[in-house]
């Protein structure tokens, strides 16, 4: 410290300062340049692998879906045998299976679900649920819900109580996809306010997944949490659940505050017009 002060006091600090600054700048530039090159190379390599694996994955999935190729035959495929434990290949296969599953229904979707289980891709998704990173957990939840893995419902339900908003909404959406109304039954006891953004997402999930059985939605109207009651009213209104009119009528007469009373009357008017 003393040495530095002497350098400053006798006015000879400019030269070493400039040398150190220039050296630091050049070193930082070289490091950033190398990082940039590394990242670019990695992207190029991944793109090349995607093209290469894409051909194999497409062929594999199409034979599974359209030619009823059993998994015992797939496992004999030399290319598949070589790549089945490669992390990137597995990740890309999961992506393709999920994408195809979103677009197909009926027996074709069931075949993809079976392949997802047999190939161990389901276990990869289950591992994601244990990640400490919320985005990885969201990915795992989305994959498992898309592939209708009902046994993870309780784990996903736990995630729907997470603090992270995105994780919470992803988990609630997944619960609705897997179990319909049962997926939001726990909200009746929810201790905190549910914001508008979460409510919009829940309503959108009900519409998207075309939840047929709406039994239990009326229970939301009995919650002590007024935002949950408001959500129940919005769901009844948006899904046009005329069979819930008696419950809304009851709320309109016994609402805990004027806002809910007004909302209930408005929903009643829309449903009975």
């Amino acid at each position, binding site marked *: 410290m003393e040495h530095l002060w002497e350098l400053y006091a006798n006015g000879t600090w400019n030269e070493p300062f400039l040398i150190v600054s220039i050296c630091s700048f050049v070193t930082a530039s070289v490091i950033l340049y190398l990082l940039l090159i590394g990242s670019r190379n990695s992207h190029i390599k991944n793109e090349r692998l995607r093209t290469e694996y894409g051909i194999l994955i*497409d062929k594999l*999935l*199409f034979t599974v*879906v*359209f*030619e009823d190729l059993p998994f015992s035959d797939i496992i004999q495929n030399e290319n598949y045998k070589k790549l089945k434990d490669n992390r990137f290949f597995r990740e890309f296969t999961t992506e*393709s299976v999920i*994408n*195809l599953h*979103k*677009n*197909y*229904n*009926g*027996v*074709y*979707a069931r075949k993809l679900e079976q392949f997802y289980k047999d190939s161990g891709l389901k276990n990869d998704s289950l591992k994601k649920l244990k990640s400490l990173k919320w985005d990885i957990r969201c990915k795992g939840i989305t994959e498992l819900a898309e592939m209708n893995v009902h046994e993870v419902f309780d784990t996903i339900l736990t995630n729907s109580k997470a603090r992270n908003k995105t994780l919470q909404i992803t988990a609630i959406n997944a619960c609705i996809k897997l179990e319909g109304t049962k997926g939001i039954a726990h909200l009746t006891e929810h201790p905190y306010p549910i914001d508008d953004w979460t409510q919009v997402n829940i309503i959108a999930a009900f*519409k*998207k997944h*075309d939840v047929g059985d709406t039994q239990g939605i009326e229970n939301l109207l009995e919650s002590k949490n007024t935002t949950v009651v408001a959500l129940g009213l919005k769901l009844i209104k948006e899904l046009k659940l005329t069979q819930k009119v008696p419950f809304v009528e009851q709320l309109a007469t016994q609402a805990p505050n004027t806002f809910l009373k007004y909302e209930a009357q408005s929903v009643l008017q829309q449903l009975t017009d």
Partner: protein
Amino acid sequence: MKSMRIVLAEDNDILRKSLSFFLESKGYEVDQFSDGKEALEAIETNNYDLVLTDINMPGISGMEITQYIRQRIQSDIPVIILTSSGVEQTELDSFDIGANEFIAKPVSPAVLLVRINKLLGIRI
């Protein structure tokens, strides 16, 4: 028998490739496009028996393709519209501009095949 030619316009790569694989395995000749504009150019210059198009696509939408076929080319080639939109109005608009069939995603290839065969008058 001459195989039937189908235009498949769909921007989702794996869905387009898989449907193409499925239809080709059923004996159809499929020309696939991921861009609406390219699909329309192909329709204008070739003779196809059926058009299968997604609504939301880069270039030109499936609705515009249907409208162009009916109004500008004045062709009565069967058009099937595929969409992930669950909006009732989209379905009504599709029929209004001249589509013969409207199929909401997720699709069942088996059901799609039955509808294609019906439109082309093919008995199995």
